[in-house]
């Protein structure tokens, strides 16, 4: 696995921060926007130049989104000890995800989209595919390469696509994940929808006022059981499901149909019942709409709602990276048999009375569910299970 977020630039750093209840959300120090002094963000305090140096990535046209993806991908590939032969093999797949792509470069994009001459170095870097096309070239990936954009559930779908490539025999191993960097485009877009909180977000709290945007990247290496041979296994991806809420372009139905169906579907794929879920890493953005819809869906599905928490209070909502980085966090729950505090929670939502985990606790965990629900009603749920290896 590999991960970089506002609370750490490696999986280990992220885990330490989660254990210590560290919040990576605060004032912007690097990114320039009119909202810098008005809103908090989960900014990764590493400049693009530093990233370029560290990753030996000096090719022209590399966006911050691509650099962050490269950082996490590099960590994952090293962690999985993939050899050059394996990387170049025709049965190694790569599926990434992003919602912003190179659109983080607002001014360059404005120029290139509107002016008739002097195109910038980023002409081929604006779409979401540019990130994975760079990774494909950098690592010489010769299997199936793909990019998915389903808004906030993008990288959850990226993970389940890679898993199915392996399941259907189209790949032996898959590098899967997602990334997004801060962009005026998303900041202004979410602000226009009035769902950005002026304070640090408070997922599942009655007084919640919206989400904080964050940036992150995370990649995981999936391999078949038979192919793993002697390498350490973190967890098994046992369940996954993608559904659509089909209610509204930018909000979830009150009954949480999409979330309910995706959670239920993931359980069916895993062949387990609701009572078998030990813990849920919730989508929990801190918006009035999501947290209520997600809570309602949980109450519908689970006779007794399992322990749950939202790590978006630590990292912010990382959009295209959310599904992947929260998958990493769910796996950390399993590997270390622990749950992390859901930060900034004070009082439960009146209508549901559900309370997330309020302190770091070591405990036995067998199956952890991770939820990602996005614009366009795109919902995805993943289930990771403890293995005995």
């Amino acid at each position, binding site marked *: 696995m590999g991960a970089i977020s506002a609370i750490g630039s490696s999986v280990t750093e992220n885990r330490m921060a989660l254990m210590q209840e560290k919040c990576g959300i605060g004032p912007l120090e690097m990114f320039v926007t009119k909202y810098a002094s008005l809103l908090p963000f989960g900014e990764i305090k590493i400049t693009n130049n530093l990233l370029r140096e560290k990753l030996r990535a000096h090719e022209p046209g590399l966006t911050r989104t691509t650099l962050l993806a490269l950082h996490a991908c590099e960590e994952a590939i090293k962690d999985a000890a993939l050899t050059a032969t394996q990387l170049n093999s025709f049965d190694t797949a790569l599926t990434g995800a992003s919602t912003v792509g190179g659109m983080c470069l607002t001014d360059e994009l404005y120029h290139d989209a509107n002016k008739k001459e002097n195109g910038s170095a980023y002409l081929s870097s604006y*779409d979401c595919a540019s990130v994975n096309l760079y990774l494909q070239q950098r690592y010489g990936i010769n299997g199936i*390469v793909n990019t998915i954009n389903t808004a906030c559930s993008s990288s959850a779908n990226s993970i389940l696509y890679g898993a199915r490539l392996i399941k259907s025999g189209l790949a032996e191993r898959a590098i899967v994940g997602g990334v997004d960097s801060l962009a005026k485009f998303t900041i202004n*877009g979410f602000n226009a929808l009035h769902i950005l909180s002026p304070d640090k977000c408070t997922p599942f709290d009655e007084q919640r006022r919206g989400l904080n945007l964050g940036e992150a990247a995370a990649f995981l290496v999936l391999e078949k059981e038979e192919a793993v041979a002697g390498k350490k296994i973190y967890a098994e991806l046992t369940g996954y499901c993608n*559904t659509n809420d089909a209610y509204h372009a930018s909000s979830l139905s009150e009954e949480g149909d999409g979330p309910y169906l995706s959670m239920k579907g993931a359980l069916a794929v895993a062949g387990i019942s609701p009572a078998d879920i030990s813990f849920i890493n919730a989508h929990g953005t801190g918006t009035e709409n999501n947290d209520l819809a997600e809570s309602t869906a949980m109450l519908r599905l689970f006779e007794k709602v399992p322990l749950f928490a939202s790590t978006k209070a630590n990292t912010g909502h990382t959009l295209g990276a959310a599904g992947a980085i929260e998958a990493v966090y769910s796996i950390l729950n399993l590997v270390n048999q622990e749950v992390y505090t859901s930060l900034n929670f004070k009082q439960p939502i009146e209508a549901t009375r559900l309370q997330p985990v309020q302190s770091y606790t070591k405990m036995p965990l067998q199956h952890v569910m991770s939820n990602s629900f996005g614009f366009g009603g*795109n919902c995805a749920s993943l289930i990771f299970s403890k293995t005995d290896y």
Partner: protein
Amino acid sequence: MLYIHQTTCISPQLSFSTIQLDQLQESVNNRLQVIEPAYEGIPNGILRRMGKAIRFGVGAALPIIRGAVASIDGIIIGTANGGMEDCIKFLNQIIDYEEGMLTPTNFVQSTTNAIAAQIGLLSANKAYNTTHVHRGLAFENALLDAVMLLKENTDAHYLVGGVDEISMYNYNIDYLDGWFKKESIDSKDLYQSGTTGSLAGEGAAMFLVNGNSENAKAKVAALHLLHTEDEQLVAKQLTLFLEKHLRSGEKIDVLLSGEDGDSRSLHYYNACENVLDKQATVARFKHMMGEYATASAAALWLACIILKEQSLPGHMIKYGSSSSNVNRILIYNNHKGRQHSFILVEKMK
């Protein structure tokens, strides 16, 4: 792999309300823009707020959704730039109003998953819904997604589509990046130009697919995706692909080639034609559909039409005859030199 039961296409040609491919519609200002139908079934209030790609993407999907006998178990769209017109409108507002209070409509409509989402919304479909955005292989990944789903459940039905629009965004950016002709040309002269760049195109092609052959219109027998700039590798992969998927005595009748008039990518198409060694009719489609990331979806629609009619319009032929027994069509497409795909399409027996 999978069977196509229904297919529609909104394109720069007469391909939707009536299908008249012999009447070649030509480019205007180096662009091949879609002929938009009167969209029946989309309320005017909703239609007005839709960006172009969403409008004609949904428009192409609606007949299939309305005509589907069985429930649709998933909506899978491939698009590289769908919604980008709205994206640029929103972006321009950000700059022009210096991040002042903006209206969210353009933002919400501009995400590439808006097409699939809107189709899901209009058909109240809560099943699998996803958007693949891998540029020149976005549609192929969407098709592959359906192939994998059908492997697990042969009786399921999926709506698979490829959609992309000419927007100020991709036209200007791709023009500056050298992907479109600098000189003014007509689409009918595209292949003789000898210069770099192609003509911008757009379109939406939709397919209702299923794992059962009964009543199917065509079969997608095999699919291969490839990233490379080595034409020898392309030729080698094609040879292997044909060895693997053609039984003894079987041959490709038509090579439906994505040749796009860009002198820089001609060598890939030549390499593939050499593999087939004059054994197949070579037909081209980008003078009709234009060049865009999901043009292969329009090619697949064309393949279905050709298999049904057992003939193809003369203006498509590069080499060979326009009518003979067409049993097997190989689509070879290349986007921006680096992304390649082979799709093997077979006539139903």
